[in-house]
């Protein structure tokens, strides 16, 4: 390579770095704060105000967009954030199908993406595109294995499954099917329902007709209530398991005494008073819940905490990335991705993160807690 050709390149590079040094870090946030997934998106949008504002002397600016729960709108929002706002990292979108749709654009632009979505499909199986994605929720199989272990320990032989007809319910059907088989528990019925259904009587009847020892309901948000109350109304008094999707105070409010005794596995955020102070997530989660309540006057849903954790992950990774390049450059973004992958023993609200090149969700058993409903309140299962 001749000197003449290197010189302009060098010059450009210095100019670029000089320009970049003054730029602050820009993070794009996409949430579904309207439309069908608003239940998930609103606490996420509200959490943006609690994300870290400054790291290692660099200001962090957040650009928050709403995709109205529409995957097409998520893609245009991502393109806008990449091309116009020149973001360094992306938090969002809220919905699993939305997140699946934007991965290729985030990867093509080389932007680390922190997805607060349920489906493990955004990080598994790992490939060249998905290596840009980090997931701040527990993988379904981590939660499911806690439930299946509990079933096995309490002598349950047959299980009926009722799941939402969306990616969340479908992935649960897949994951639990495999785990139950491995545990020697028989899945005797598998039914689906729509989130907006006004009646799930038929599904409940069919499940009851199969006479399972326990029923597992997998549905996001307060739609998980209706199958369980319908089962109760029809005289089913067996065990009911729920997923972390039901881990909301709304669930208790809507279900009342009909959901007493429900067992679910979720992050310890629901039962902060019951867990020992030695649990590393307790302090972080307590602070988040208190800050959120101070700002918005209500307790946050777990979905918001997933975005908060994304902020914590970025906060921990940014100092290392700053050594490799200035914000706004491709070098910085690539270094940020590498630093996120190096995350070790970071306590978030949802658990303790240990990222590896193969595992971009990074949770272990400390990220889940068996929880039950006792006297109309969440309580840790002893």
């Amino acid at each position, binding site marked *: 390579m001749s000197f003449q050709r290197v010189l302009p390149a060098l010059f450009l590079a210095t100019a670029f770095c000089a320009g970049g040094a003054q730029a602050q870090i820009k993070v794009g946030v996409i949430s579904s704060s309207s439309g069908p997934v608003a239940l998930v998106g609103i606490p996420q949008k509200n959490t943006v105000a609690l994300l870290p504002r400054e790291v290692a002397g660099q200001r962090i600016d957040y650009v928050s967009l709403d995709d109205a729960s529409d995957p097409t709108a998520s893609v245009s929002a991502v393109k806008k954030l990449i091309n116009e706002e020149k973001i360094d990292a992306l938090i969002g979108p809220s919905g699993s199908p939305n997140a699946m749709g934007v991965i290729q654009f985030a990867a093509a632009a080389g932007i680390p993406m922190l997805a607060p979505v349920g489906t493990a499909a955004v990080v598994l199986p790992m490939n060249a595109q998905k290596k840009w994605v980090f997931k701040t929720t527990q993988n379904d199989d981590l939660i499911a294995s806690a439930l299946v272990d509990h079933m096995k320990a309490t002598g349950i032989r047959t299980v009926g499954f009722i799941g939402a007809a969306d990616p969340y319910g479908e992935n649960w059907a897949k994951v639990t099917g495999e785990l139950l088989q491995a545990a020697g528990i028989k899945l005797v019925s598998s039914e689906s329902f729509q989130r*907006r259904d*006004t009646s799930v009587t*038929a599904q409940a009847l069919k499940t009851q007709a199969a006479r399972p020892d326990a029923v597992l309901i997998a549905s996001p948000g307060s739609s998980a209530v*209706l199958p369980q109350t319908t089962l109760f*109304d029809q005289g089913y008094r067996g065990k009911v398991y729920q997923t972390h999707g039901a881990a909301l105070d709304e669930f208790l409010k809507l279900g009342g005494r009909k959901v007493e005794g429900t067992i679910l596995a979720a992050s310890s955020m629901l039962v902060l008073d019951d867990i020992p102070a030695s649990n590393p997530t307790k302090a972080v989660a307590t602070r988040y819940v208190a800050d959120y309540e101070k700002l918005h006057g209500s307790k946050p849903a777990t979905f918001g905490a997933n975005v908060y954790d994304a902020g914590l992950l970025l906060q921990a990774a940014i100092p290392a990335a700053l050594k490799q390049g200035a914000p706004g450059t491709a070098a910085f973004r690539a270094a940020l991705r590498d630093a996120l992958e190096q995350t070790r023993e970071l306590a978030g609200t949802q658990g303790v993160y240990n990222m590896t090149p193969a595992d971009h969700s990074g949770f272990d058993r400390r990220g889940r807690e068996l929880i039950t409903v006792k006297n109309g309140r969440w309580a840790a299962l002893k």
Partner: protein
Amino acid sequence: MDSQIALLLGQDGLTSGAIYALLALSLVLVFSITRVLLVPQGEFVTFGAMAMAGMQAGKPATLAWLLLGLAALRLALMLPAALRRRRLPAARSWGMLAYAVALLLLLRNLPLQQLPMAVQALLALAMVVPMGPLLYDIVFRPIASAHALVLLIASIALHGVLVGVSLLMFGAEGARSEPFSGNGLALGAVTFKAQTLWVIGVTLGLLLALYAFFNHTLLGKALRATAVQRLGAELMGISTAFAGQASFALAAFIGCLSGILIAPLTTLYFDSGFLIALKGFVGAVTGGMASYPVAALGAGGIGLVESFSTFWASDYKEVIVFTLILPFLLWRSLTTRHTEEEA
């Protein structure tokens, strides 16, 4: 499947079928009088249900604010024309504004949570029903003579706006209200849920009332005349604008009542109404958007089909329900003579 399951499914299907039938009736009513396919019908259902659940949960009645906003908007829209004629807008518009303010004050000062359920239901109706004519005046009256397609587009736009407003007012959380009464009625092996009996009873009562209204009152006959021939009715001195307002008021009333009826049965969300009304629409289509009894029967049938198909194939429930519309459309298009729509 044994007979008990069949009876339970039938009960479930009849309950939803009754609601679909009510909505099918109001869709046919509004369509035949104003040529508007009332897509936002489902929002009245949501409003009714959310108003009940909100009052019982002790939340402020935000719907009254929407009513106030709509009343003010209509007044504002009338002002330019009134100024040109150097006259104040009609007393009725001021009356509506005063009504909205009075209702808002009343709701703010009443102990909503402790009121008997019948009073809560009346208050919910008092908030939602006037929205029907207001929305007609604001959105559809200025374009009343436009092509049916334009009306449909305006209707879809209004639906979008109301769903957004609904999210703002009620939030994304689901809501549910208390059942009207506790115990059900045991008939042999099957217990009929109290709420099911309420739904079916109120539906039948309303059907009879509507029948009497359309056949034995002057206003009902005027509405029917408008539905048969708009121009002819106008020549006979029937105000089509008034007929439009009346049909929208009836639609809002039926929608709100349906919402109040199903709120204790299921968890409803800010956007739940649309799907419920859509199934009512399938019922209305079976009646060719013209016949009330066929539409009501069709909608009842939809409820039953939905319930049984869910039992056998829950994954394909919606597909089955909405596919039902195809044979009816085919049958309709083969048996009826096509006429160009009057402009």
